[in-house]
């Protein structure tokens, strides 16, 4: 009885995204049980690696998941979203390639240096967005529209208009597989980033401060919280996520194309945050929700492709499913559902009482 009660009451933030994933899984199982078969194949470099649709989904959602984690924080603190993450990732990717191409050969050291440089660049642009939002109180979507518009031009300038390719086994390993490890490297990076977030929340008070600023800025200020700093910090953290995503994107292809790298990802990122049950108006948040949200989106896309839906139609079908998800997750439907549950429960309680008599 007790466990049942708990289950009924816990219509929490993660319910909808988890149900969405489960429905997609069941749907695919019925449609084509082989969808989930995971095999081990030899890739071009002769490594034994995992392959299959599921791996493609999890691997393909890596950049989205990483960006969604950062976006969750910005959303929570500022009550708005950063629409420049795709453009900023192109800048970070270009910066990454710039350093990689600066030497004759690419060593592990060069890659680390290049990554750190890309991080710094992305953090600076994050701080730029953050300053507009936190100091000048511009609406996040308007503030980041600037970088959204000009970001890919800046990326273009960094490498002098070329789309240089990078040839290095290290880069291939980052974008693909590390020899001897069958799991795609981007997936490992997602796990690492998630763990870092977890550690940051554990060892700092970022979570409660961010939520306070997002829910009630005025009260937060009177409790001594520097909300400008918290908002700025959220954008800088998102900057780090942007550079990680950008570097993964570059490594997958082995080249930087400032026009197409992570194109249109900003909207999917915001969507992932929303599907994860986070309030886009700021406040309480769950990073895990956004991560699941990212996988829901990717799973949906791959499912549609697997059903031979043409790539032009995919977006329309995606939209239909997403409308459903967002409506089901809306407070109105949730309240109705909870009421229904209460009714069912009290009905059952009455029956048992009658039975006892």
């Amino acid at each position, binding site marked *: 009885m007790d466990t049942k009660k708990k289950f009924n009451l816990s219509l929490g933030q993660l319910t909808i995204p988890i149900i969405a994933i489960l429905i997609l899984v069941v749907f695919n199982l019925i449609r084509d049980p082989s969808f989930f078969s995971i095999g081990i194949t030899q890739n071009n470099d002769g490594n034994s690696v995992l392959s299959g649709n599921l791996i493609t989904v999890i691997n393909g959602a890596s950049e989205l998941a990483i960006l969604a984690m950062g976006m969750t924080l910005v959303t929570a603190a500022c009550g708005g979203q950063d629409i420049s993450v795709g453009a900023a990732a192109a800048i970070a990717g270009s910066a990454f390639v710039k350093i990689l191409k600066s030497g004759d050969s690419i060593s592990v050291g060069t890659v680390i240096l290049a990554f750190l440089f890309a991080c710094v660049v992305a953090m600076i642009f994050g701080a730029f967005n953050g300053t507009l939002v936190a100091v000048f109180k511009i609406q996040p979507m308007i503030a980041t529209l600037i970088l959204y518009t000009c970001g890919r031009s800046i990326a273009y300038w960094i490498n002098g208009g070329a789309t240089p390719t990078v040839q290095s086994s290290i880069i291939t390993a980052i974008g693909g597989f590390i020899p001897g490890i069958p799991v795609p490297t981007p997936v490992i990076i997602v796990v690492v980033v998630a763990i870092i977030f977890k550690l940051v929340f554990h060892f700092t*008070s970022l979570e409660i401060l961010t939520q306070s600023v997002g829910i009630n800025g*005025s*009260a937060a200020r009177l409790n001594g919280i520097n909300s400008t700093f918290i908002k700025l910090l959220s954008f800088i953290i998102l900057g780090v996520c942007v550079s990680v995503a950008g570097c993964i994107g570059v490594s997958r292809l082995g080249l930087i194309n400032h026009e197409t790298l992570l194109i249109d990802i900003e909207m999917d990122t915001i969507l992932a945050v929303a599907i994860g049950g986070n309030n886009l108006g700021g406040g309480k948040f769950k990073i895990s929700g956004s991560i699941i949200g990212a996988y829901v989106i990717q799973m949906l896309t791959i499912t549609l492709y697997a059903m031979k839906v043409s790539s032009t139609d995919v977006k329309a079908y995606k939209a239909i499913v997403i409308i459903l998800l967002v409506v089901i997750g809306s407070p109105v439907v949730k309240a109705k559902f909870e009421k229904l549950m209460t009714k069912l429960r009290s009905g059952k309680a009455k029956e048992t009482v009658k039975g006892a008599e």
Partner: protein
Amino acid sequence: MKEDVLLTMRHIEKRFPGVLALNDVDFTLRKGEIHALMGENGAGKSTLIKILTGVYQMDRGEVTIEGTPISIHSPQDAQNNGISTVYQEITLCPNLTVAENMFIGREDSAWIRHKDYEKRADEILEKLGIPTRGVTQLGRCSLAIQQMVAIARAVDMKCKVLILDEPTSSLDDKEVNMLFKLMRDLKAQGVGIIFVTHFLEQVYEVSDRITVLRNGELVGEYPVEQLPQVELVAKMIGKSLDELSNLGEKNEKAAEKNDVFYEAESLSSSQALPFNFKIHKGEVNGFTGLLGSGRSESVRAIFGADKINGGTVKIKGENVKITRPIDAMKHGIGYLAEDRKRDGIIAELSVRENIILALQVMNGFFKPISRSESEAFADEYIKVLNIKTASRETPVGSLSGGNQQKVILARWLLTHPDYLILDEPTRGIDVGTKLEIQKLVLKLAEDGVSVTFISSEVEEMLRTCSRLIVMRDRHVVGELKGDDLNQAQVMKTIAGGEA
């Protein structure tokens, strides 16, 4: 007698997760009657009102208007049935004009005719003697005026039942009298008024009948002349007043001998004119004055809540700079803000998170309070302050007003302040909690904490403070202590003129 009945509520039951908020409650309102609904926090007053206004749906029970059963599923239903409400917290749109606020949602044509509305609004406002105009943006009006606009809106909607939920908590005496006059006018027109308030005197001034609730149950309905104030309080809290009024001795003599803890000289902020102020260790003093006299602005300056323009501040005799709240907190100052909803609670966070917030901020970014530690803190203060909450993880926004206030008090007590500023800590909360807070203030002072106390109720300040700083028109106009601490003297000083 029977025809006079306007509204009946019978056997009302309402259940929230884990709480039975209303249990078989009856309520009757007659035509041309001002009916006070009384009870402590959590007694079920607000729930009953919200059922009547369609915010909540009752689980069981029956509501009739003029003998006809009605069902209310939304605020719109309530309005259509002639039930209008003015809530405790103002629920208008501050970014619209007064006129727009009065007519929003009830336009009679598809077009919004601003000129018409402004003209009609001006007429109504003038009739009611509310000193504002239709074109004024509501947010620019004082809280009191906003409240009166809300009432004007309800009045203009030709309601049969007017519900006033704590309408006077942000009004000064003059405005209260204005409102009472209006209430009596409406009563003469046959409107039934449900009046929810914590000010006992006001109940006796205007009400005809009193219904008392306690813990979600009906205690009884009484004609006002048959229920002396003492008995009313006893019925509300289930204890006798003698027991409650025994607050303990003020320690005025002792405090004067202690060292000065805080001293400000010509301190001024963007909101407060320069003023001098000091407080001794273990002293309880207070700022008094009418609404808008600058009392809140002055304490905000002490806490660094507004932009500081000048002045010198000494803590324990040493010069310090306090320009932001965090500076004040680091020097051991806590501040419970006047507007609980806007400046106090973080509504969606849990009771636990709200309690640890200030301490967490003081500890710093890299020293988070662990989960187990925060749970222990929360449990301790929930017990000490007797906070009524389903659990420590309940969002604080779902608690009743008085319990929210206790949570914020707990937040500051947890920082173990040397100096606590309480701005209207007892506003909109029930008698029992009020006394608890007053007792707590005196207890803190005994333990050596300095407290500055602000309250609209002079009587309450006289009971707790050993020194009163009186403000008028943003200036300090007097300081009262010892034998001068009596109602008459305070009134005289506030009013000004010849002593």
